[in-house]
């Protein structure tokens, strides 16, 4: 219970005075003694221990509510050459550790918003794993908070600026160049399916009925749940399989959605808006366990569409991008005759700010930040709401609310288990 108390206390404290980032306290041009920014990781599961040791910043603290994972984090940090790092059970302790510049949120999604906002309040910058938030409302709050506390926020997926983009066999930049050239025409339809190299990972389905199990002694299940409803413990809810449950994530859509859809949002230039309609074709969803689906279709106000196909659904020959004047297939094959020559008349996409640590120093927004990150996460979240309700939904992109559907709007902001709140 320490954490809950501290959470409440922390909130009150922030209202009273401003905590400035450590690099601000150092004055203009201040750089940490080792010339490195420092980082603390909350959540030492698959993502936390996976690929974050080789960032050019220095790990100084780790936090987990599972003692075995915390011990593992401590050990791995040593092995990676960071020496003894501070080990916390309670994420508020990590956030309030004055040695931490950047808080890296590696927990399941139901914690992302609270931790990001708490870190921002404490004057830390935030590196948050995908999906950004579990609900649309939480995402709106993160956007507000990052602005209020002048926080540099990175949502961690990267295909909009680097790396080969799955079945397309190219980075996104040349695709963006083609799309922004207008050669394909407008509006465009992007189909994200296994056929084009995007696996929706339906092994992230939950089990429909879980028998209660004793909570392991090394695991603080209450704190792991945090704002999520209290349901009897079963190991399948937690750790490596939590994605299968609506309380914490949204199955394969939650896992891969923002990975696959954020670059599409970038391609279509929809960083400031959301679709106006979502349609689904799926078997009925269980109230607790996320299941599979055949199709999720998003439509934007200008007619652009993003279509997701689960498993092997749909015609394998369908292009990745369909436009009135041409299509783009796997391995960046375009069916416009002489398209490469035609494309040469058009400019490259503008460069993006892709060095997070540089952004932390210069205070310029990172390429994928809370604003466009919230929009791409909204794609995931309105899909999840439509799946749970089993019906077509209409969305107001401005107000970020569903239109004429009370039940859907009740999922925009979902209640949190006391005392957690945003």
């Amino acid at each position, binding site marked *: 219970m320490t954490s809950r108390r501290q959470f409440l206390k922390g909130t009150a404290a922030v209202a009273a005075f401003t905590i400035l980032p450590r690099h601000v306290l150092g004055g203009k041009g201040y750089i940490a003694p080792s010339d490195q920014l420092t980082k603390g990781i909350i959540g030492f599961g698959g993502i936390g221990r996976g690929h974050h040791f080789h960032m050019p910043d220095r790990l100084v603290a780790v936090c987990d509510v599972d003692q075995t994972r915390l011990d593992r984090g401590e050990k791995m940090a040593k092995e990676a050459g960071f020496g003894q790092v501070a080990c916390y059970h309670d994420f508020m302790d990590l956030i309030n550790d004055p040695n931490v510049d950047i808080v890296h949120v590696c927990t399941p999604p139901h914690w992302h918003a609270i931790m990001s906002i708490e870190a921002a309040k404490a004057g830390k910058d935030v590196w948050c794993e995908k999906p950004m938030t579990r609900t649309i409302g939480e995402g709106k709050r993160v956007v507000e908070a990052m602005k209020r506390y002048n926080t540099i926020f990175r949502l961690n997926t990267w295909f909009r600026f680097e790396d080969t983009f799955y079945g397309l066999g190219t980075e996104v930049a040349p695709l963006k160049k083609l799309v922004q050239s207008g050669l394909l025409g407008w509006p465009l339809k992007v189909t994200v399916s296994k056929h084009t190299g995007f696996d929706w990972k339906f092994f992230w389905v939950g089990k429909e009925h879980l028998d209660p199990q004793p909570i392991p002694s090394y695991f603080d299940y209450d704190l792991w749940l945090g704002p999520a409803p*209290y349901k009897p413990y079963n190991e399948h809810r937690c750790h490596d399989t939590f994605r299968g449950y609506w309380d914490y994530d949204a199955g394969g859509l939650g896992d891969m959605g923002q990975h696959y859809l954020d670059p599409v949002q970038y391609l279509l230039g929809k960083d400031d808006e959301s679709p106006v309609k979502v349609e689904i074709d799926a078997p009925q969803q269980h109230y607790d366990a996320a299941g599979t689906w055949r199709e999720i279709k998003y439509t934007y106000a200008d007619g652009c569409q993003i279509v997701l196909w689960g498993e092997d659904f749909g015609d394998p020959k369908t292009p990745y991008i369909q436009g009135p004047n041409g299509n783009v297939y796997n391995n960046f094959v375009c069916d416009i005759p002489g398209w490469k020559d035609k494309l040469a008349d058009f400019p490259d996409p503008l460069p993006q700010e892709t060095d997070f640590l540089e952004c932390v120093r210069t205070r310029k927004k990172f390429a994928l930040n809370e604003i466009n990150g919230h929009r791409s996460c909204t794609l995931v979240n309105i899909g999840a709401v439509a799946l749970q309700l089993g019906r077509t939904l209409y969305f107001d992109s401005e107000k970020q609310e569903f239109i004429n559907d009370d039940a859907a709007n009740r999922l925009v902001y979902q*209640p949190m288990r*006391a005392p957690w709140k945003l």
Partner: protein
Amino acid sequence: MKKIIANSILCVVLMFMSVNIFAQPSQRKASTVVGDALAKFPAKDMKLYNELATELIGTGKEGMDLLYNMLEKQDDSMVPVEFALSAITTKATEMGGETLENVKDAFKGYADKTKDETIKQLFVRQLLFLGDNYEGKNVTTSSELDPGTTPEPKIKDIVNSLKKGVDNVTLFDMLNKVSNVDAAKTAIVEALPKVKSLDNKADLIWWLGEQKDKSLAKTFKSYLSDSDARIRKEAAWALTKSGCGCALPTMAKMLTSSDANDVALAESCLRCIPGRVADVVAPYFDKAGDAGKQAILNLISQRESLNYKSLVLGSLFDDSQQVGDAAFSALASVAEGDDLLTLYSLLESSGEANRAKIQDAILAALDGKSDAEKYELLSNRNNIVTPQSKAAYWPMIIKVASMPQIIDILSKNTSDKDLTEKAIASYMEKVEAAEEPGAQRLLRYRAVMDYATEAAQKNAILERIGETGAFQGIMYAAKFLDDKATEVEAASAIRNIATRNPSFYGPEIVALMNRIKSVDTGRDYPYDLQRIENYLAAVPTDDPGYVSMFNGKDLTGWQGMIPTNEYGEGDPFLRYKLSAKQLAAAQAKANKVMAENWVVENGNIEFVGHAYDNLCTTKKYKDFEMYLDWKIYPGQKEGDAGIYLRSCPQVQIWDTARVWVGAQVGSGGLYNNQKTERIPLVIADNAVGEWNSFYIKMQGERVTVYLNGQLVVDNIVLENYWNRDLPIPAEEYIELQAHGSRIAYRDLYIHELPSVEPTKLSPEEEAEGFEMLFDGTSLHKWHGNKVDYNVKDGVIAVESRSRGGNWVGDLYTNEEYADFIYRFEFKLTPGANNGVGVRSPGVGDSAYEGYEVQILDHYNDIYKGWLAPYQYHGSLYGIIPAKNRDALNPVGEWNSEEIYMKGSYIRVTVNGQVVTEGDIVEASKNGTIDGNEHPGLKRTSGYIGFLGHGDRLWIRNVRVKRL
């Protein structure tokens, strides 16, 4: 099967509802609706979901109470109940009004009542959707963020802070919170000249640039000549982002700057600026310095501007090395088909340094042609150039060549080490990119291994072989264990294939795995060793696994096939008629012929004769799976062969070019079948002269074949070629066919599988004159749906429907029966439904067109309370109800059943108890009990069959006796 039972198929559900719900709504009790709906949850699609939800809502509080009570019971039906409750929720939210309120009230009541936390949370979740924050004080809804500490700054304060200078954190904090951005822009543009801090000035220009405002272009331009490089950089990017048309000429002019950094900056910006960039920058070429010239060439290259081809060509040999390099780099973007000859001579006359760029240009000029055309053009040129120039062509040729073309190049240039190295590397990339099945990749790698001369090349190939997962890769890799230089990779390949495929075991593999335990694989050696130990511990002790059928040296284990007719065919049924003496003599003669026709050469079994002659195993096989490779030699008059299974033709092998015999369908098919499928599913053949790989599995009378890793025969019955009315022999030889043309076989491994012993009649039944209709091995006495009625492990497994809503049909006897005793055993799954059709015409709905004796797990809850008497198990459907409803064993256990039918008398006995008995004429004299027309009442004879549409059950030991 009768249409009342509707627990899996949508079309049946709808039919059911149209009869029972809409026609007689008042007659269905809430319990019936709930019970029936539960069998269909979770709904497979939105249409069904809506229908079920509507039905459930219609049951009101009574239905919801039923569901809640089921939850509290916590039996197996928990999950469908959970789905049903959430369907009610979402439907209620859609309907609103009173319905919503009723559901909300009921659910609140359940949440109050239950003591089970899981059930409570289920209702709390539903209540969230319904708009009730049930947990009240225990949960928090979102509140406003606390106001924070920095109120919105006044623009005046920002400007003032700039006078003294301000740190970037505070500056951006203030700028991000300004709501009147336009006013801030104006104020900052005005203040900018007076800002002293260069950091502040740069950040402010960046911030203005982010506003993407064309009207600020003038401001940005004024800072392009600032003395500070950082300010110039921010101004250039801000101008670019502003979208102002003036950016292009302005930045183009900057290319003539003497400052190399400014030129680089201008080039970066120009790459992102729309418009005819090449046309605008090209005129500055003469005025520009070397850096500017390079930048202009780079931009011409980026925009692939063919108009400036002569500028590019003219700069190739510029005095400045860097300008020349940039021109060579731009070459590919301006090259066209007409330039090929120019580019060829450029390539042949230029040195190593620019070779790669010219090669790129040549490939660009060939763009639009197919790889085959490119290969031909480049090869033709390569054939006429000097030996010194050939080296410049090879990299392009191997890039466009197909895998077989690379093998061809390798075979003709074995002494060219450099080419060999590059060609092998390119080949390996092509194999990876082709993503072919493992067995095919193994063949590809084996083909290129012949040309690998260096240990490094061999090791690279062995490593990939280890990733194929292909059975024969194990034995192939073993050949590289003796060489110290390849030992480690060979051992790794063996280990990787075997440990990832635990079904690959056998004496040779186990010996190899034991042998490679001692090969030190380096850092991971302890783990590798553990994996080997794990593998070995899991090898079954009661099954020898795969054994080799060929020792690589001679034809031990093989014999000549005994011909039994004038065409030289070997009919086993005729062979059975030979006396022992005749057989010995015939075998001796056949072996002599074999010795002339079949040889062991190159480690293969090869046919070198000219007539038709099959090579025959000395051992007979029942059920088995086997691997073998085969190759048709090119230039043969009849590229044709095959694998005979149980002495029956055959898994076909032939040259697909022989279209006049139908070979275009590909190899691997059961080509001599007439009733069942004979054409392969896909054409998976490799070209004549290349190796092919078979995996053949024979279980009972069914055969599965993979050719080069692709499924070509999917569990198809192999017909008895010698007598099509009989099933294939249960045990016979495997034969390698030859058709007068040279053919090679290698790597033959066989794994004998446990086979089913046919069920025999009891001595009593045999004496009484019963006939076996299904003995566990074959459906040859049956016709109709042999797809869903599938023989598996000695029983007929009726598979769950997987083909959507289509009826695939019933299974009927080949013969018709009038008066008879029919006996069989069956096992049901929960709720399963089927039926025995008797005196059936074999088409249409047997329940009406003939008679149906019902098969149904009527114990299942989903039928509770609404089943008509004539629908219980054993009833003569719609005509005579079963009287005994307790004779069935619990679901999951086997049952025995007898149907006795003589004239109009019928008696059904289940597990020794008579359940139905009566006279059909008597029972239907005043119309049938179900009130339906039964045209079948007039029939006195017909087929016996199993009727069903989708439920899983198992049937065995089916016998019949005519009366």
